[in-house]
């Protein structure tokens, strides 16, 4: 027995895998640039705890949506309907609440039901009708936006003060929304890493045939991933309703939550082909995104130039991974 043990070389204690650490490196770089920008321009007033929280707070809706998007991208699908769903949720929730605190729970329940329904529809169109996910969710997105526009064109309903706690409340000096975001990320990460469902998600995205031959119900996994994604978008919608104190049919499209949620997932190291990546990468991606915005603000970059630079940064980040890791990235 001891002979066997001696024969087995010790596994390398730590193998540095560039592609797994790249998002963290990028985040470090972004933090460094932010610090440098603040110091160089003499705006050291931004370098404090409150400002850090403010930077994070701007990205809660994007972050929550991106957590959901991570699930669908991991199963090698994609969801373009999140932005419309976010708009629909803000309107639905604030119209049901209509300023009445007693209606908060029914509004949340109705919103989540809408999210689950939209996610199931997305998933079923993709798995049962074999429609490409890009087209399926784009179609669903147009349907949602169309229905919404038929009823409302601007702010609708009102959110009671009690519900505004979601966006504006503090717990132990930290904004509730930030705690909520990290809590959600924690739960999502546990689901992906420590449950059977999570391992099935990676299997289906990594190699659908191998997963099917291992007896995994691949279609069902894709549908559940889409339901999770839509539920996250609904939660992002509830947050925005609380923040706006009302519902708005343009809020989702305005925030470009569909494409930006995909961008932060990819910057976070999850590959579009599926099967590799994770929640913490996405959280890092969201932080990088909001830091980039803050850097531009500190430097006083023009709004249009900002947009151009963001585009370049997204592409450059993905190319950076691809060149360095010599593996498929997106």
């Amino acid at each position, binding site marked *: 027995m001891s002979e066997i043990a001696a024969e087995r070389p010790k596994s390398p204690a730590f193998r540095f895998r560039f592609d797994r650490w790249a998002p963290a490196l990028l985040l470090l770089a972004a933090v460094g640039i932010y610090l440098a920008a603040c110091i160089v321009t003499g705006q050291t007033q931004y370098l404090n705890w409150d400002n850090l929280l403010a930077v994070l707070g701007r990205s809660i809706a994007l972050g929550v949506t991106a957590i959901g998007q991570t699930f669908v991208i991991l199963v090698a699908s994609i969801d373009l309907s999140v932005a419309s769903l976010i708009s629909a949720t803000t309107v639905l929730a604030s119209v049901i609440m209509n300023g009445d605190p007693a209606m908060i729970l029914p509004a949340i329940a109705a919103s989540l039901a809408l999210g689950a329904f939209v996610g199931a529809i997305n998933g079923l169109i993709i798995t049962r009708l074999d429609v490409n996910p890009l087209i399926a969710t784009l179609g669903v997105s147009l349907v949602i936006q169309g229905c919404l526009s038929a009823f409302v064109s601007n702010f609708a309903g009102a959110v009671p003060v009690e519900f505004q706690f979601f966006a504006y409340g503090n717990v132990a000096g930290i904004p509730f929304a930030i705690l909520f975001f990290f809590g959600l990320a924690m739960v999502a990460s546990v689901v992906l890493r*420590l449950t059977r469902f999570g391992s*099935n998600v990676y*299997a289906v995205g990594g*190699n659908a*045939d191998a997963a099917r031959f*291992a007896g995994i119900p691949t279609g069902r996994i894709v549908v559940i991933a889409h339901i999770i994604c839509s539920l996250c978008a609904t939660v992002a919608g509830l947050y925005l309703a609380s923040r706006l104190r009302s519902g708005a049919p343009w809020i989702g499209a305005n925030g470009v939550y569909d494409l930006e949620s995909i961008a932060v997932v990819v910057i976070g190291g999850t590959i579009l082909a599926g099967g590799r990546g994770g929640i913490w990468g996405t959280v890092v991606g969201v932080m990088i995104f909001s830091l980039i915005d803050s850097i531009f603000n500190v430097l006083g970059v023009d709004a249009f130039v900002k947009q151009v630079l963001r585009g370049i940064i997204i592409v450059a980040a993905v190319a950076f991974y691809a060149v360095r890791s010599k593996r498929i990235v997106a």
Partner: protein
Amino acid sequence: MTDAPVIEMKGIGKRFPGVVALEDVSFACRRGEVHALVGENGAGKSTLIKILSGVYRPDDGEVWIDGRPVAFRHPVEAIAAGISVIYQEFSLLPERTVTQNIFLGREITRNWMLDSAAMCAQTRRVLDMFGAGRRIDPDALVADLDVASQQMVEIAKAISLDAKVLVMDEPTAALNEAECRELFETVDALRAHGTAVIYITHRMREVTRLADRVTVLKDGEIAARFETLPEPSAIVHAMVGRDISDFYAPFATADELGKPVLSVLGGSNDALHDIAFELRAGEILGFAGIQGAGRVALAMAIFGARPFESGTMTLAGDSVRFTHPRQAIRAGIGLLPGDRKGEGLVLMQSVRDNGMLTPRAFGNLFSSHRKTAFTDLAGMDRLLDQMEVKAASYDQDIRFLSGGNQQKAIVARWLALKPKVLIFIEPTRGIDVNAKSGIYRLMRDLAKEGAGIIMISSDLPEIIGAADRILAMRGGRIVAEHPSGASETAIMLDATGEQEAAV
């Protein structure tokens, strides 16, 4: 008890449109036995295995497991019944750990959470059954393991699924010497463990080292069955013994052979070592060897897709160095890939468009797509006519054509560029017997018009029948040269490195 076969296939027959793949094949394997299944490419080995593993259903005959007939409708049912197949392409998830792969789809959970410790311990236990498994870390990512270890993970997965029958499809194809030796020890361990192992190979060395019984398949039928280990020569004879008919075009005569068009000296890269040969105009030069011997790597090196890193190459008297296929094509080299559908054709486009693919790629960017520097649409139609491509019309999508006609359309594509050298990889794969002859004659006609032809094929009789000269490759080197019409046994022994063994 031990003599009762675990798995028994009785009178299996399988037909595909136009081809009889298997005819009355019976095959059995007992517990703790290694049964070698040998035969040339296209002999029906993989069809037989696909029937056993539930991918195909037999047209005739039955599969029995543990004395009961079964009818699998899906590979998952075969796996559940205890049949695991390790294909050359592994079905592992590279981005997951060894443990995660082994427990794919049947993870152990406790209170809804994965029980990683338990799974890891079981993985360790299974891996420790094999010498080659002991050095594998259950927490390592599969992508970080070498090929031999990945194969070990597949074997461990099968064992942990309680596989009664393990099929290994040419498992040493991608392994080096030391890894092969370890694999043989693993197979010995499987035999001792009581698993029935069906071992597919065409390397005699492996048969003599491992097999308890040997079954030889040829042309979809049982050619020979040995209840005890025979002399290697008897197996080789059963594998290749067939007549070369007038199926092939006549060989080149001395005055048909022209000046050298292509020569390589000392060509090496990570798959090839010190390649040296000369191809003459009007000659068909065959490259024989087993899978992984470096024949395709050589074609890719000449074609510039995976270039030589050292050595020199001369094309029609000029020293050349290609780092991209575009340069090779421009200089006059054409390649017909072995995977016609994947690498050769745009299936959704017409026959004519497929023919125009390369001429257009080299045309002027702003010129008409109907007329390139090489040929216009009418010229392409004439070439297609000349190749006798049979299609309802040249506007028909090429995917509706038979394999032979698709191949001819690809040849027409190259003819438009008047190539000096044409490389055919597996020219008749997936083409039915009657059309094969047409392809051989086509190759001969191209050679007569002055092109040098390189023919790479895993079908030994076809190389012997069609090539004027045959180079045998093994392990990335050219190991021997044979004249036209050499004996299959002689080439086979060179290609498998069995020179020193019996015969």
